[in-house]
């Protein structure tokens, strides 16, 4: 009798044990050591991923539409001229930390032993710290839309003059230099998040180490063994409304760089989820009945493109540029070379960016086989263009294509070299490679023209999902990076370039979304079809594998608090 009771107890215990006692653990590979966990300094996807979990923003971005949605700020108001943004914050979020002795997350208490709420002052401090030249933030420039920010960051103006102000403990107001319709997305970025002044003052640069860090987000850093692993635990004090609905209690991160090792660990059930399986394994994964079901492909807001240096003969002739762009068989590249569900691109900005014109048949239809075009027709047309420019079959054409060293870029460059050589058999296409730091120096617009290649490779990923971050900041002839060296004095397409300049500058200073979208559409059309400053190749995709027990949401920056694991399924392996 007693024995059977015990047995029943044991069985029941075993059944409920996983549900009640064992924490739900996510095993994740970050892909590399995060260079920082400091919101002011984050600049790479890995750092931003862990910052996202630990620090809340005024607003968050919607998983699908990328529109701003409430987070710390319950609501916000924009003045009629679009120059003043006021955020009204909730008052139930507190700063917390991990107490290693107690083995749990605790409130961070002030000198009087009081809990510290996250206030408007923390936001003001965060923004100003990011802009402080002594902080040395690489991303400070996205805040330049705020009044006085550029001057403060350059050191010519005072930080006190920056247009961010705490009206009361939970209301913060930003004053802008132009009515930027995209400021909501900027306010969601890590560089604009509240930062704990007292912890930073006390610990200096080391404030992000687990024993010092004070945070307010969904997860709290427990340990960080640099270059090896990080452990995060769920923040039990976060308001229920800000929790994403996931069930993960602890996240155990490793920092494996090697794709094939990460894949081996995933197969070995040492990881629950995997970002980017090795390229050569894609065929096997797609063919495998089990693995293919675990593969998820989602669009990623990045674009892979080749840029043309428009002042370097023979690339100064737009017909030559267009002929080269037309003979890139984008479909074959994404299907046979990159293989990860990327989408052939006909515009610079992809489909999730505000103001994009992606896949519109009115722009470069030959790139996406739209409006009756296919690759053969494009090649015929390109050959005609090039012959018209004085290079029949490419005779006399010598083009240097440069990319930074990387296995993936090399594959694409060799494929495109082969396509061009096939279309223009008498031309010479030379691939050159440089290591990343040297390469970026080489392709800037300051490099003497004899040292730059004719064609360069780059990718662009959004800082914030708005065309201003794309056509304007990257390609605007006067204010952007302008690596293609566009100039209104161009003898062939000078007028179009002047118009492009005007369009992209103007659109960034408007707040009416319909009007903005119209201007950006025209700008993209000029850029790709007439000026042909760049040849967009494909829009990136996420290739993510999940074990059957793993459910993920698709925010651009992962939100672990929205993920969940089915422990029963996982126990079965």
């Amino acid at each position, binding site marked *: 009798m007693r024995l059977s009771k015990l047995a029943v107890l044991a069985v029941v215990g075993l059944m409920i044990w996983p549900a009640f006692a064992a924490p739900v653990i996510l095993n994740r590979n970050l892909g590399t050591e995060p260079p920082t966990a400091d919101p002011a300094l984050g600049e790479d996807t890995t750092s931003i991923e862990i910052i996202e979990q630990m620090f809340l923003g005024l607003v968050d971005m919607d998983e699908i539409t990328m529109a701003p949605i409430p987070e710390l700020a319950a609501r916000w108001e924009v003045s009629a001229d679009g120059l003043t943004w006021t955020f009204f914050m909730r008052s139930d979020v507190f700063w917390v930390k991990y107490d290693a002795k107690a083995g749990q997350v605790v409130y961070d208490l002030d000198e009087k032993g009081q809990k510290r709420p996250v206030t408007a002052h923390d936001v003001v401090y965060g923004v100003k710290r990011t802009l402080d030249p002594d902080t040395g933030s690489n991303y400070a420039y996205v805040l330049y839309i705020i009044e006085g920010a550029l001057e403060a960051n350059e050191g010519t103006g005072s930080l006190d003059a920056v247009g961010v102000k705490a009206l009361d403990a939970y209301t913060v107001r930003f004053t802008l230099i132009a009515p930027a319709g995209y400021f909501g997305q900027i306010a969601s970025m890590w560089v604009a998040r509240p930062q704990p002044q007292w912890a930073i003052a006390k610990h200096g640069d080391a404030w992000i180490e687990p024993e010092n860090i004070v945070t307010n987000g969904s997860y709290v850093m427990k340990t960080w063994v640099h270059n090896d692993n990080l452990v995060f635990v769920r923040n039990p004090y976060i308001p229920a409304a800000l929790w994403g609905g996931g069930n993960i209690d602890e996240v155990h991160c490793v920092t494996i760089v090697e794709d*094939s090792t990460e894949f081996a660990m995933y197969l070995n059930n040492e990881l629950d989820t995997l970002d980017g399986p090795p390229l*050569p*394994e894609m065929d096997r994964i797609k063919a495998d009945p089990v693995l293919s079901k675990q593969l998820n492909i989602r669009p990623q807001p990045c674009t892979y493109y080749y840029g043309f240096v428009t002042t370097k003969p023979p690339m100064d002739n737009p017909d030559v540029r267009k002929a080269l762009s037309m003979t890139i068989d984008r479909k074959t590249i994404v299907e046979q070379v990159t293989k990860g569900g990327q989408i052939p691109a006909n515009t610079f900005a992809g489909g999730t960016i505000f103001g994009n014109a992606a896949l519109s048949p009115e722009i470069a239809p030959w790139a996406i086989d739209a409006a009756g075009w296919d690759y053969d027709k494009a090649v015929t047309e390109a050959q005609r263009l090039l012959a018209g420019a004085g290079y029949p079959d490419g005779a006399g054409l010598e083009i240097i294509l440069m990319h930074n060293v*990387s296995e993936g870029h090399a*594959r694409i460059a*060799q*494929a495109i070299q082969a396509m061009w050589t096939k279309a223009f058999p008498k031309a010479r296409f030379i691939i*050159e*490679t440089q290591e990343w730091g040297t390469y970026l120096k080489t392709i800037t617009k300051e490099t003497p023209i004899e*040292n730059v290649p004719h064609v360069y490779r780059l990718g662009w990923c959004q800082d914030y999902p708005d065309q201003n971050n794309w056509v304007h900041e990257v390609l605007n002839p006067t204010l952007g990076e302008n690596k293609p060296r566009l100039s209104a004095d161009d003898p062939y397409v000078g007028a179009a370039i002047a118009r492009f300049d005007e369009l992209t500058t103007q659109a960034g200073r408007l707040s009416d979304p319909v009007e903005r979208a119209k201007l950006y559409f025209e700008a993209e059309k000029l850029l790709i079809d007439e000026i042909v400053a760049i040849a967009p190749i494909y829009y990136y995709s996420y290739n993510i594998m999940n074990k059957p027990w793993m459910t993920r949401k698709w925010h651009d920056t992962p939100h672990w608090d929205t993920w969940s694991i089915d422990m029963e399924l996982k126990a079965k392996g």
Partner: protein
Amino acid sequence: MALQKRTMGANGEMRGRSPTQDAFRRLFRHRAATVGAIYVLLLVIVALFVDTTIPAAIFGGEARPLIAPKHFAEVSFFERDLPPGTPGFPLGTDYLGRDILSRTLYGTRVSLAVAIVAATVALIVGLTYGVISGFAPSGVDNAMMRFVDFLYGFPLLIFIILMQALFKAVSRRGATGFVGMMVGIDKALGGMFFLFVALGILNWIGMARLARGQTLSVKQKEYIESARALGASNLRIVFRHVLPNIIGPCIVSETLAIPGYILTEAFLSFIGLGVTPPTPSWGLMISETYQGLRTYPWETLIPGAALATTTLAFNFLGDGLRDAFDPRLRGT
């Protein structure tokens, strides 16, 4: 003394054969070394003539390639990742549908060039330096060895990046004369010439240390003392007695270093500083496909096998050379 007499006898009194002839005779009696030598010779032929075509006039029809069936950059997107034995592609194709057989054959160029350039630089410079250092008075020896220590600690990688960045900038300005010639060679080797120079520079140092260690050891031998007693000059002692006695381990170490050079090239390909694609090298072929080892093993293992057999050949050849030039085996 017995040894001494025999060496003198080889000067022409005993038999009508020079020591070199003697050495070659013994080299070819060494079966494994002969196989190695033939293999290396074959590699040299492949490297020299891999892109030669047979003119149409000889067999009629079209001009046919002599060695490699296809050009190394001939891409065929829809025939990618085919296994060996596929008709038209005896060793299969890689991720861009390029013929692996042809690429491996073309790869001989870079890998053999690195082996020969680096090994020669290392052997000649290192041996001279090491012997001088070992033979010199201890003050000079010490200074020479500190210079070697200095070069040893020198970061090769920084040197290579610097050279590559510099020379690539120069090449586009259209260099002439000596620099132009160097740039020409560099281009033909897929941007690797300066790497080979750097490898040679790094590795003569290792050779110098080895040669010095050997010289120090040989220097104390009885036959050196007796030669000195007989009034031989330093130069004569070095050439007649020291060099022949230390060359064995040096050659063996150098043939052993050859796979190291080829692997260094592979490592540089791994970190992206190797040959510029699409020029193939075995190292590049391995490093660009190793991640798919489980799906397309042949893409990695075929260049790997080429690398291994070449290494094997150099090693057997090195063994044979060591035995052949060992003075204690002369006349046997």
